[in-house]
């Protein structure tokens, strides 16, 4: 076997051809790729016998199949017909597709050879860090990565690895962060990173450089993706060499989970956040309360949960919130808690009269509900009760304290019923009441945030964000989360008017659609089901209109409303579709769901399953084994 230096010299031409062919799509993204490729070490697999029977993890059962990379795809052969025994996983990782998810946006070069590693042979060295806080976070994120590798290793039966794949290499991970000393995910966080993995003597060295903790963390996530379990070798393998230059297209990449229509235990939330991290999503939009229930027990206003939670087993304490925030922080994710007001409130606000505070809300559970709200039960805050603003200030202060997110805030503002307020206030236009409520809510938000308005305060798109009311909102303070259908004129008008927006178009990114109605036997209000391909191919900013080029799109979020979802179904409903969204928002490739996307997403789905996420399968497993046949 040739040494690295020999291989570099002797195989130069072949190497270039290989690099060009293997990672063509990625290389086209940047001319710098050639330079990147030039410094990359390369090795051809010349000696087939070296790949011959590694140990089988199926004690005593010889693997039947071998996958070989031919014409840029893995073809399945009967093991007895080939000289090389290679698992599907390893073939995929070494064949044409990068197998990375989301696809990096800068130049990528990946070796087509792998070496064995073990989770406990990885070590971390923080080369540069702007603060102790960042250093601490890097250390924790590294442990998270190592734990995921350990989980993969649990798939290996016994310790009886065959020796002919060689001993596991040591891997030294060197992380340098030059930039922000704040480890939080912020609107101005530079999430870019560079990863360079190369052999050094008998070990491997990984250089991850970034401008923030979050960027470095993404680098670790990519490192984890070039590490996999080979079931035939019974060992973790890692690419022998790799360089990745990467940065997201959009700064806001979110998933909304509604924990009010049905309650989800903390463990479900944590698993969801971990799956988000695997896809480099960065915003967990926690729609914590709604008319149906208010599960969060605030320290400053415990009455809300006392009156609003489904029961004692369906409550989030402040400690729970801290746990979730910390868990997310290490994974580069902000927790954006939304207490939706002035509508979408319920019994949680029904205790005003008995506390001597008057009616905090009106229309609570009013009948017939269809006159006063979009779904049962109804409820809307009383905008004329000054106590409500004191209460909101407490709520906002506690959100900011617990989540430590102070540059971005979500005020809600979804689906206000004019009829409800008109019933109680006949002296004014309900729209004026709404505008005034929003102004006052913004005022107490500033007070709760130390006298300063957050840089971006989000409202759901609504009648308030339509002309002539839109003109009365300040685009420097407010942003809009656009949930209307992408073809609705008002969905575009918000963007044309220059409001910073988070896209959640119901016709593409609502994950709850397509399960029939929960109140009758019709097909439901927003069917059909949005397939992962539809999620993936939605690119509303890439329309032909000249205005769309200037749209201030911050990013997008998939929305998982939970009228028809409980903890049991969460993973399969959200994954892998939200992974499809993650790549849309990270890479925003112009192509749709091409064959390569199917293959990479199939691999990503397997990664999620290995992480304990019960993601739905894309297709029969047969298609994974014979990838070209189902495309």
């Amino acid at each position, binding site marked *: 076997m040739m040494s690295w230096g020999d291989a570099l010299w002797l195989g130069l031409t072949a190497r270039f051809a290989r690099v060009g062919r293997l990672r063509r799509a990625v290389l086209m993204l940047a001319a710098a790729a050639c330079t990147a490729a030039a410094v990359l070490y390369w090795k051809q697999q010349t000696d087939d016998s070296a790949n011959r029977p590694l140990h089988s993890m*199926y004690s005593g059962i010889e693997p039947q199949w071998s996958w070989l990379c031919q014409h840029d795809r893995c073809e399945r052969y009967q093991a007895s017909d080939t000289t090389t025994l290679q698992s599907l996983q390893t073939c995929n990782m070494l064949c044409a597709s990068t197998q990375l998810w989301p696809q990096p946006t800068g130049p990528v070069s990946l070796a087509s050879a792998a070496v064995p590693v073990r989770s406990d042979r990885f070590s971390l060295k923080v080369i540069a860090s702007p603060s102790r806080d960042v250093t601490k976070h890097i250390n924790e994120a590294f442990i998270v990565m190592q734990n995921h590798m350990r989980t993969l290793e649990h798939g290996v039966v016994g310790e009886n690895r065959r020796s002919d794949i060689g001993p596991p290499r040591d891997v030294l991970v060197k992380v340098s962060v030059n930039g922000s000393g704040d480890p939080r995910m912020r609107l101005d966080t530079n999430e870019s990173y560079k990863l360079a993995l190369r052999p050094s003597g008998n070990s491997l060295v990984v250089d991850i450089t970034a401008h923030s903790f979050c960027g470095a963390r993404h680098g670790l996530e990519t490192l984890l993706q070039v590490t996999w379990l080979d079931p035939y070798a019974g060992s973790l393998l890692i690419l022998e060499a790799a360089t990745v230059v990467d940065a997201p297209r959009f700064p806001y990449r979110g998933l909304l989970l509604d924990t009010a229509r049905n309650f989800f235990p903390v463990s479900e939330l944590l698993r969801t956040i971990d799956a988000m991290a695997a896809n480099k999503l960065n915003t967990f939009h926690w729609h914590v309360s709604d008319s*149906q229930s208010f599960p969060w027990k605030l320290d400053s206003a415990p009455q809300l949960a006392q009156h609003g939670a489904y029961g004692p087993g369906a409550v989030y304490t402040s400690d729970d919130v801290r746990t979730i925030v910390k868990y997310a922080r290490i994974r580069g994710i902000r927790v954006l808690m939304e207490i939706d007001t002035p509508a979408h409130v319920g019994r949680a606000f029904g205790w005003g009269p008995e506390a001597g505070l008057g009616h905090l809300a009106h229309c609570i559970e009013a009948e017939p509900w269809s006159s006063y709200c979009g779904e049962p039960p109804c409820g809307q805050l009383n905008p004329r009760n000054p106590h409500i603003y004191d209460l909101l200030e407490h709520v906002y202060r506690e959100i900011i304290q617990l989540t430590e997110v102070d540059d971005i805030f979500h005020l809600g503002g979804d689906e206000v019923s004019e009829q409800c307020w008109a019933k109680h206030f006949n002296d004014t236009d309900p729209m004026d009441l709404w505008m005034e409520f929003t102004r006052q809510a913004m005022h107490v938000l500033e007070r709760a945030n130390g006298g300063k308005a957050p840089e971006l305060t989000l409202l759901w798109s609504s009648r308030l964000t339509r002309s002539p009311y839109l003109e009365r909102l300040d685009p420097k303070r407010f942003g809009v989360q656009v949930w209307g259908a992408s073809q609705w004129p008002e969905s575009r008008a918000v963007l044309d008017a220059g409001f910073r927006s988070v896209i959640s178009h119901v016709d593409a990114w609502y994950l709850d659609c397509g399960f029939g109605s929960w109140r009758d036997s019709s097909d439901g209000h927003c069917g059909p089901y949005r397939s992962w391909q539809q999620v993936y191919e939605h690119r509303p900013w890439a329309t032909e209109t000249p205005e769309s080029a200037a749209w201030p799109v911050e990013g997008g979020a998939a929305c998982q409303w939970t009228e028809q979802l409980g903890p049991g179904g969460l993973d*399969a409903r959200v994954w892998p579709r939200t992974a499809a969204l993650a790549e849309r928002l990270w890479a925003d490739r112009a192509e749709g769901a091409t064959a390569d996307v199917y293959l990479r997403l199939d691999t990503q789905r397997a990664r999620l399953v290995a992480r304990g996420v019960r993601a*739905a399968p894309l297709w029969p497993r047969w298609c994974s084994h014979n990838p070209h046949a189902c495309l």
Partner: protein
Amino acid sequence: MWLQAICIYTVFIIIGCGIPTAAEEHSLWRWTCENNRCTKIRNEPENKEPVLSLEACKMFCDDYGLLWPKPTIETNLGNFLSKINMNTIDIQITKQGKSDDLLTAAADRFKTLVSSSVPKGFSAKAAGKSVTVYLVNDNPYIREFSLDMDESYELYISSTSSDKVNATIRGNSFFGVRHGLETLSQLIVYDDIRNNLLIVRDVTIKDRPVYPYRGILLDTARNFYSIESIKRTIDAMAAVKLNTFHWHITDSQSFPLVLQKRPNLSKLGAYSPTKVYTKQDIREVVAYGLERGVRVLPEFDAPAHVGEGWQDTGLTVCFKAEPWTKFCVEPPCGQLNPTKEELYDYLEDIYVEMAEAFESTDMFHMGGDEVSERCWNSSEEIQNFMIQNRWNLDKSSFLKLWNYFQKNAQDRAYKAFGKRLPLILWTSTLTDYTHVEKFLDKDEYIIQVWTTGADPQIQGLLQKGYRLIMSNYDALYFDCGFGAWVGSGNNWCSPYIGWQKVYGNSPAVMALSYRDQILGGEVALWSEQSDPATLDGRLWPRAAAFAERMWAEPSTAWQDAEHRMLHVRERLVRMGIQAESLEPEWCYQNQGLCYG
């Protein structure tokens, strides 16, 4: 109203006597039965009315309490709830016979169910009356499944003294008595205000199913399912009195069934050496099913829907043929070559080992789904065979060829199972009512209908005397409604089928005057887009809606069943089934307010 007030008051007397506990004082909410629905109201300190938990309220606020599926002959739940001690439940088996081991297992399951009625994070006080359950099985020697087995039972509960509750379950077979135990377990509820287990005290229930065949099909070939996930499914089936687990074990995509005589089929055909079902695995499932009154019915789908595993046999045609759209309905294509004599020896070996593994089955499903004449026509060998037989190469000749296959396969199946057991086939061109009697004898074959409920084939087949199992895809295919996995858009049978439609899918309405020929129905979960990660949510709780339709064939619509349906979903979740949520929990707590 006056009667209702009495009822609530008496409930209160039994469960509320003694000093109110701290929990009771702190409970912010209570429920009261008004106009046949439970209303959530504030539990004011000055309240003098009984403080009922949600489940206690629901038990008496509906003629059928919290029972699912609802009993068909007589249901009288009385007015009383008694506090019971979970640790003092004693089960007596009064008559001895060869099904005793099954009754003992059912009794153990009953105890597990009672303890799982306490939600996670709560515990029940070990105080209250003791419970003795008498199981009277009038035919303790029966332990075999059959289409005419007697699943009826009667259940009586009474309180004989101040510290004792007696329950008696009487049935004509183990299967009936077992159902009675399921019903009994549904009459025990948890009171989360006082942390007590309560039982309904004065009960008379007489019950039997409307249809003898009530099944779920699981396809373990498109994606693999662990034995554990299959057992979990059977557990949930038993809870709603379904009785047939139809195991679509092989297909073109994989062959996970391990056969001693033909080991290559799974060796080449399984997704991996660990993704297989051995004879021992299957027997384990069969035994598990028997204890739960669930027959495990094997299907060997042929002559189409084969492929992986058969590579080295030379017995298939058009395997992995491209473009697949020409030769089959989804990749990969593959069909058995009926002209090969050796094929039938192969089939016999498969059938023999299936008969050994699925030891308790009284029927056999031979598949017969989606045969492509183009596929057969692509083989010169088959063409020659047909020409030798002086057949044309037209539609009717390919039906003759198919019939030739079926007749040979049928003989081998009878030989393998050692009896002329009922055979089942999917609806197809072979079973078309205009000519079906030329090929299939109505006394030998049962037809499983998978086309729509409005298909004229249903009446056509019934008029010719065929017995049917209904799996009309427009209501009972639970894989519908997701994105397409080949091509774009959503899958072929979209949209998703809501539980309301499942509940309303009445075979009696389709059968009209031929109702006696409907053996029952079956939900199908084809697994192109499903695996253990999605299994529970796809099946449950929708399969429970189906179970009540099959057991009771109610004349009422889903609206009348809604709050019981929401409760059976909660029960399944407590049993460890990851059932989907149908509505916000608010609707469960505020009955009748989530109307359309």
